[in-house]
């Protein structure tokens, strides 16, 4: 499975220009909308909406396909297993012993799969269009305490490093005779201790040095903090945010008061 350390794709598009806070809130509301709606037609509309956001963001076809095929196995499994466990309504399409498959339950399964797809694409829409630095900054502006934002930024910066370290240690241990592809499942898995122990110890050493570095830069000094990258909401951002909130509010009202979308 291809592992990318950063999902961000650099493009010029209205979506890319949006303030990360708007995108964070938008993705969140998008996922919530998918959760409160169960009707497959409504979910299809949401799906179309989120795909069009990706299109406006000029996400290329290979990237879209990566997102799609990551979720595909889950979708298939949900749709396949749902009718086996939830048997509701008519007409019954197929019946054999304890297995009763009805049309409504197949549709419900497909709706559940579609819901997962909507949620996944909401996340992708956010992550394909927002660089990590802005994401963290957005979270901190949305009231995540600064220290957690710093911790998160450090983590994101070090993930590729640790990717390299894990591979390097695997090589080093292989040179010392570790055979990671031999043996049954249990043996193979337990052998990974020989990789994980050095990685953890390396991590602890790095953390020690890093904490010195942080302290030596006067972290925690009682001065008002300034930032290199800061976020400003433009008119377009405010407009987009309003549209999102109003649309979501409308959906909630329609769902709760009028029972639409059930």
């Amino acid at each position, binding site marked *: *499975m291809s592992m990318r350390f950063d*999902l961000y794709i650099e493009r010029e598009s209205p979506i890319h220009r949006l303030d990360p806070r708007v995108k964070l809130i938008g993705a969140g509301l998008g996922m919530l909308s998918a959760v409160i709606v169960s009707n497959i037609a409504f979910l299809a509309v949401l799906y179309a909406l989120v795909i069009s956001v990706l299109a406006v963001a000029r996400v290329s076809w290979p990237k879209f396909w990566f997102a799609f095929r990551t979720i595909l196995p889950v979708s298939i499994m949900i749709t396949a297993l749902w009718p086996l466990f939830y048997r509701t309504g008519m007409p019954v399409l197929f019946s054999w012993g304890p297995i009763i498959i009805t049309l409504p339950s197949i549709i419900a399964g497909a709706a559940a799969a579609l819901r997962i797809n909507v949620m996944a694409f909401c*996340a992708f829409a956010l992550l394909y269009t927002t660089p990590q630095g802005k994401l963290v900054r957005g979270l901190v502006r949305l009231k995540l305490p600064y220290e957690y934002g710093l911790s998160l930024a450090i983590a994101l910066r070090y*993930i590729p490093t640790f990717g390299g370290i894990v591979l390097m240690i695997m090589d080093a241990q292989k040179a010392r005779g570790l055979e990671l592809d031999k043996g049954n499942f249990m043996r193979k898995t337990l052998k990974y201790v020989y990789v994980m122990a050095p990685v953890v*110890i390396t991590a602890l050493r790095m953390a020690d040095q890093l904490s010195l570095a942080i302290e030596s830069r006067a972290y925690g000094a009682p001065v008002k903090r300034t930032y290199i990258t800061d976020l400003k909401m433009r008119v377009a951002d405010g407009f987009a945010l309003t549209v999102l909130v109003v649309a979501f509010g409308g959906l909630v009202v329609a769902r709760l008061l009028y029972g639409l979308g059930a």
Partner: protein
Amino acid sequence: MQRKGMGPREIALSGIMIAATAALTMLISVPFPLTRGYFNLGDAMVMLAGLLLGARLGGIAGGVGSAIADVLLGFGYFAPMTLLIKGTEGFLAGLIGHNRKFPAKVAGVIAGAIAMLLGYFSVETPLYGVGAAIAELSTINILQVTFGAVISLILIQVVQKAYPAIMAYSPPPVSTKYAVAVVVAVVIVLSAIVGFYVTQGIG
């Protein structure tokens, strides 16, 4: 309740451990094309983080690290729930097992394992349907927590011997009230999520 906030030591430790957890979760994974798509040894890291660093940092490293791994592997929509569930797993492992004798460590990882299994099952049932939830529970998840527990118990002893300096790190002890509050909060949030799903007509 004793909280000195996050000093440089905590920030560095949590940042690095988050990164190590995420990297290991992503790299040491066997594709298993159901549900979240991969059998991985992330749980070993989550439990180890708890045992090694205490409840708070263990919860942060385990939860955030696993959530980031989810995001980078394409399952970003699951990240908030993974954050909660794996965070609790690390938190409980640390709460019961950190700085205590071996039997307490075992109890800690078992508690973490139960939290992970229950948590994922209760969130996946409304989202994926009970069939898929059972499928994942009985295959990948149970394997992950079993191996995770065993491996983390091995690792904690190895690391303590090899790097005694880490034992000089004792986080401010989590007071019982705080711990209970966290567990209760997590249970409430998860039940709210599940209840929310159910009342909206899913599952």
